[in-house]
């Protein structure tokens, strides 16, 4: 095509330049058609997938509860310098807006938001509403009469932190950090740190599962790639059938196998290794068994497809030149499979860090990964900011790994072509 166009460009006659324009038009038409074919899916995904996820990520910095329920107070308290108590106007607007907030569920929303600042805030708000006088000469005094806490700057500082439209508190909290009253970032108290250990646990489980999958999957893929096609196709069924079997079926099967009266315990007792059944399920061991089983095919299949393309002659040549067979294997064969190792490892790791169902079913409370906490904050406590913040970090990690995966796989294709 380009060659044809080049010759067209060289010829000076008017007729060919008309042809050139026609060609260009045809090419443009083709592009428009191509885009028109892709557009329905792209629009579908943007509406049902991209926007919802973007919207969810936005919730990790969204802080508009107070602005929506108490617009005047929120605006005024942001201008307060925070040194002494706010002026009477702030107190008055707060008193009026908290009275109006009872209708339409506004009180519940600001109560939930302010409770993140101080867990006694909701009680303070309901108590204040109950004793709020109809009229007052000085709302500053009236509110302080209801509760002395309205005379403390820390109470108003909490309201001030809830006033801007965005906040970094959820993102900070998701890595066990917070802002103190002076606005400086600091670590939360030792006994309240949970998320760093959740992330550490997630990476540990995902990394462990990935390494075990590589350890089990590499020899198996090697066997499948070196056996005669008939035999290897037969054995491949052993990999593909579990791969196609429902994740829930396999998870259920592992609970059955690992429970105290299950096959594994019975086998261990009969062979005399143990006397009493050991706890293998609803703990970390169960999580590892089930996750390795579910993810192993994702390691074996990419390795197998790369190993299929590796010629055995190099290894043989190395041996014939006097290398020890193991040296030949490690130094000649394994480096040729590195793209498969990379693809399988990253694929398994990406899938493992997002796991939710399997740890929820076969793990104990201390084996739950980041996904579990995202689901927990969404469904159980309605702390959407926290769910979104943890979700954002998980998504970021996944996308970064996927980018690396993409680069590696593309390079592999380049090498092949």
């Amino acid at each position, binding site marked *: 095509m380009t060659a044809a166009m080049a010759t067209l460009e060289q010829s000076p006659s008017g007729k060919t330049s008309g042809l050139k324009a026609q060609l260009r038009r045809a090419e443009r038409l083709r592009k428009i058609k191509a885009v028109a074919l892709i557009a329905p899916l792209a629009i579908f995904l943007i509406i049902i997938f991209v926007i919802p996820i973007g919207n969810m990520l936005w919730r990790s910095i969204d802080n508009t509860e107070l602005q929506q329920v108490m617009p005047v107070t929120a605006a005024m308290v942001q201008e307060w310098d925070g040194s002494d108590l706010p002026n009477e106007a702030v107190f008055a607007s707060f008193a009026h807006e908290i009275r109006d907030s009872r209708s339409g569920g506004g009180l519940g929303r600001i109560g939930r938001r302010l409770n993140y600042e101080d867990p006694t805030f909701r009680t303070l708000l309901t108590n204040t509403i109950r004793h709020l006088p109809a009229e007052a000469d000085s709302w500053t005094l009236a509110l302080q009469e209801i509760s002395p806490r309205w005379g403390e700057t820390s109470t108003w500082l909490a309201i001030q932190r809830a006033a801007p439209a965005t906040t970094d508190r959820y993102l900070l909290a998701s890595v066990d950090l917070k802002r103190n009253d002076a606005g400086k970032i600091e670590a939360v108290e030792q006994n309240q740190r949970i998320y760093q250990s959740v992330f550490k646990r997630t990476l540990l489980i995902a990394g462990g599962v990935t390494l075990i999958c590589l350890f089990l999957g590499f020899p198996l893929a090697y066997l499948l790639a070196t056996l005669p096609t008939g035999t290897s196709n037969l054995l491949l069924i052993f990999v593909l059938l579990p791969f196609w079997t429902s994740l829930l079926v396999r998870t259920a099967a592992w609970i059955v196998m690992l429970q105290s009266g299950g096959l594994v315990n019975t086998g261990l007792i009969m062979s005399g290794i143990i006397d009493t059944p050991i706890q293998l399920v609803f703990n970390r061991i169960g999580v590892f068994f089930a996750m390795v089983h579910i993810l192993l095919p994702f390691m074996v299949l990419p390795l197998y497809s790369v190993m299929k393309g590796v010629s055995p002659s190099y290894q043989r040549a190395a041996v014939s030149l006097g290398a020890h067979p193991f040296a030949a294997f490690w130094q000649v064969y394994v480096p040729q499979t590195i793209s498969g190792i990379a693809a399988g490892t990253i694929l398994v790791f990406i899938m493992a860090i997002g796991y939710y169902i399997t740890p929820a079913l076969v793990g104990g409370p201390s084996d739950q990964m980041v996904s579990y906490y995202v689901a927990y904050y969404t469904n159980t406590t309605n702390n959407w900011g926290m769910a979104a913040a943890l*979700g954002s970090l998980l998504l970021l990690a996944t996308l970064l790994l996927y980018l690396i995966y993409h680069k590696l796989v593309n390079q592999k294709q380049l090498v092949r072509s």
Partner: protein
Amino acid sequence: MALQPYSSPVEHIWFWTFRIFCALVLIFLMLPVLVIIPLSFSSGSFLTYPLPGFSLQWYQTIFSSGPWMDALKNSMIVAPLATILAMVFGTMAAVGLNRADFPGKGLLLALLISPMVVPLVIVAVGMYFFFASVGLLNSYAGLVLAHAVLGVPFVVITVNATLQGFDYNQMRAGASLGASPLRVFFTVVLPQIIPGVASGGLFAFATSFDEVVVALFIASPTERTLPMQMFSGIRENISPAIAAMATIMILLSVLLLLVMELLRRRSENLRSTQ
């Protein structure tokens, strides 16, 4: 690692260690699938060996029970619809991607594949809020749309791969003989890429038929799918009824595997005749 007549004893030992290791890994892969099947025929009510006796009572339980049959019915409504949606959108997009080069194509492809990469819980939470705001929460339509999104990448990838070997001169030939683009697609292109479309569709179907995370967030008990029923069954009261349902689902996977193999052979045959 083949054993040669001249191999040393050490190599013999390694050879057999390697073989036994691989056999153990294969057993590890197959055992859970095989262990659960006999338990579904248990006459007892515990999921333990040895079986007290043979009985079909648990199959009777699931086939006569409201929740299991409703769940199966719901899955049979949602999965095919989601698959059709994913196949139509996915095939169109894959054909478009192969037709022309334009700026941003790589980014677009990344977008189309992304539902496969993003952790399910994030998809689930995002859709939960979105569907709540547009009134699709707790509806069949919402579930179908969500599962179609999750199935689309498989169709795009498989059709895209099938189109790699496709000769576009055939389309020009069809057009020069006076056929409309749509007719060219259905009579020339589609018969050749159908193995890719179908295997992408099977992946999409299996995804929807096995998907539980998103369903748990966006569906109510009325739209409870089979995986949701399995999930609550495993969580609350794990009985041989679960094993019976699992056996039926394993049979389905065998069927899927066979169809995939047939499709693979068919596409290989197509390629070798070209």
